[in-house]
């Protein structure tokens, strides 16, 4: 099963939200749409689901044109950021409603629901209302509902953004096991680069309604196509040194090292995380973030340097990547 977006444009009133968007998601592939809020990533997802109509362009699932197919018959499984569970129904009824409407015998229906509840460890909550569940449980019910849809495509709209960090890490393996890596293409919208790196086969970094760069997490990290991508992928953010001769230099905080022959700096702040620590230092080329081992003792005025292989070179005006010197 495949998903293919061709030259999709969409505007709300005068404001263009998506501009000529192209995207291919292969059989069983997970593509994360990553970007700041308002970049059009959620709109792209709603267009795929059929909840909004594109102004132009084509959306194909398994080579069948979908633009004119109403959302009810598109067979997509979507997990909403708000989970969108029906508050007046208990967990079982939430899962049953769609199955009942779409037909099938009571027996097979009950068997499927029980199985999904078991897989997601929700069996004991079957008779509870969504309001009685914790955030993580609600999220699992929403996953269960999407799984029972038998979809051609999975669409996940910031499915974990309302959960605390601990729970997110717990849920990631479940998500990978149940949805990602099956036959269906998965589109995963998020603004959390760590989540995107952890789950996606490819990441599309979006900006102002178009894809700034698409590639594997590794490609995006090692060869960011622009300063925007460079700053979006990798934490702490990449340091950008102000342009000299029209060239902006980017250096990852972990590529900086202490070096007695390096640039003299003063320490502005220091955050210690145990395994590593982050320093904010000021040198005459600007402020730099630097990550080093937690054990390292730092002088009050350290000297730092970096190897020129680690430099990412960007055009000082457009921010596009320049071929390495």
């Amino acid at each position, binding site marked *: 099963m495949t998903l293919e977006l061709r030259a999709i444009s969409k505007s709300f009133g005068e404001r263009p939200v998506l501009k000529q968007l192209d995207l291919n998601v292969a059989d069983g592939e997970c593509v994360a749409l990553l970007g700041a809020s308002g970049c059009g990533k959620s709109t792209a997802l*709603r267009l795929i*689901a*059929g*909840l909004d109509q594109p102004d132009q362009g084509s959306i194909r699932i398994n080579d069948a044109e979908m633009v004119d197919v109403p*959302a*009810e*018959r*598109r067979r*997509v*499984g*979507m997990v*909403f*950021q*708000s*989970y*969108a*569970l*029906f*508050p*007046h129904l208990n967990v079982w009824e939430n899962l049953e*409603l*769609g199955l009942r*409407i*779409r037909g099938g015998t009571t027996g097979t229906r009950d068997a499927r629901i029980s199985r999904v509840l078991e897989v997601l460890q929700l069996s004991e909550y079957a008779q509870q209302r*969504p*309001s009685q569940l914790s955030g993580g449980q609600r999220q699992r019910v929403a996953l269960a*509902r999407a799984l029972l*849809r038998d979809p051609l495509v999975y669409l996940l709209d910031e499915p974990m953004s309302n959960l605390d960090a601990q729970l997110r890490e717990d849920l990631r393996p479940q998500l990978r096991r149940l949805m990602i890596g099956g036959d269906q293409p998965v589109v995963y919208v998020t603004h959390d680069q760590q989540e995107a790196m952890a789950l996606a086969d490819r990441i599309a970094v979006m900006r102002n309604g178009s894809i700034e760069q698409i590639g594997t997490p590794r490609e995006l990290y090692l060869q960011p196509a622009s300063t925007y991508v460079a700053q979006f992928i990798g934490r702490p953010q990449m340091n950008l040194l102000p342009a000299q001769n029209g060239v902006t230099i980017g250096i990852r905080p972990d590529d900086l090292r202490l070096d007695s022959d390096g640039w003299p700096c003063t320490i502005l702040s220091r955050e210690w995380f145990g395994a590593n620590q982050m320093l904010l230092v000021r040198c005459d080329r600007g402020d730099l973030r630097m990550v080093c081992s937690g054990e390292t003792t730092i002088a009050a005025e350290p000297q730092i340097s970096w190897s020129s292989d680690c430099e990412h070179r960007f055009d000082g005006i457009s921010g596009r990547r320049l071929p390495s010197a």
Partner: protein
Amino acid sequence: MTRRSIWIALLLVWSLAPMLWQLVSSFTTADALVNEQLSFWNRWTLNNYRDLLSTDPPFWRYLFNSSLVASLTTLLTLVLAIPAAYGLAKLPIRWRGSLRTAVVGAALFPYVLLFLALLELARTFSLGNNLIAISIPYSALSMPLALLLLTAAFEALPNDLEDAAKLEGLSLWQRLRWVLLPLIAPASASTAILVFLFAWNEYPVALTWLSRSDLLTLPVAMARIAGSSTYSVPYGTYAAATVLGAIPLLVLVLVFQRQIVSGLTNGAIKG
């Protein structure tokens, strides 16, 4: 806390005292109402109720008429207003504002100004003296308020819920039936009560549309009791009529009180 309870007590006295007064009056003989000297044991009677129920047609006939008209009106209003309110809630924002203003305008319009026109309509289409027909103008007059309440209820529902239902394969009517209607049930209940009350209490239209004595609704029938004699006002009978006329409403409110309260405060729906 004690201050609050004092206020609540005052409020209760303020609103319940007139009802209690009516209740007491309805069981009091006509003599006792004007004569303070009468001893406590000689004041009480059931005659007011007996008079009321032995007239022709008996008083329960008016209760039935009013119940019928009010129920029909409520039903008709909800059947029309719920889909309309859904439509209004889904309109693009730029149209919604002006339509909302029009509906508020209609809700604020003093409907007594319409009653001559309504009378003409009743004449032209021979709708007079028909308990089913009178629920048409009643529904029309309740429509603006019903639309306002129900539109607000639909707008308060998170859009994601309907989107999720759509992706589950539910058609428009299935979404209304299985998702939206249950979720706006509190608002529908409070709207229904308000419409029912309006139809129950309505006087000018009923006065002009209904003239046959076996078809009168409560307010008109009660006005007739009050005006039945030129020389005296039958306070006791009048009070008994008020008491009987209030009982169905009390029952209704008691049965639906939870929905009414949650519908009026409108904090009932949370994901």
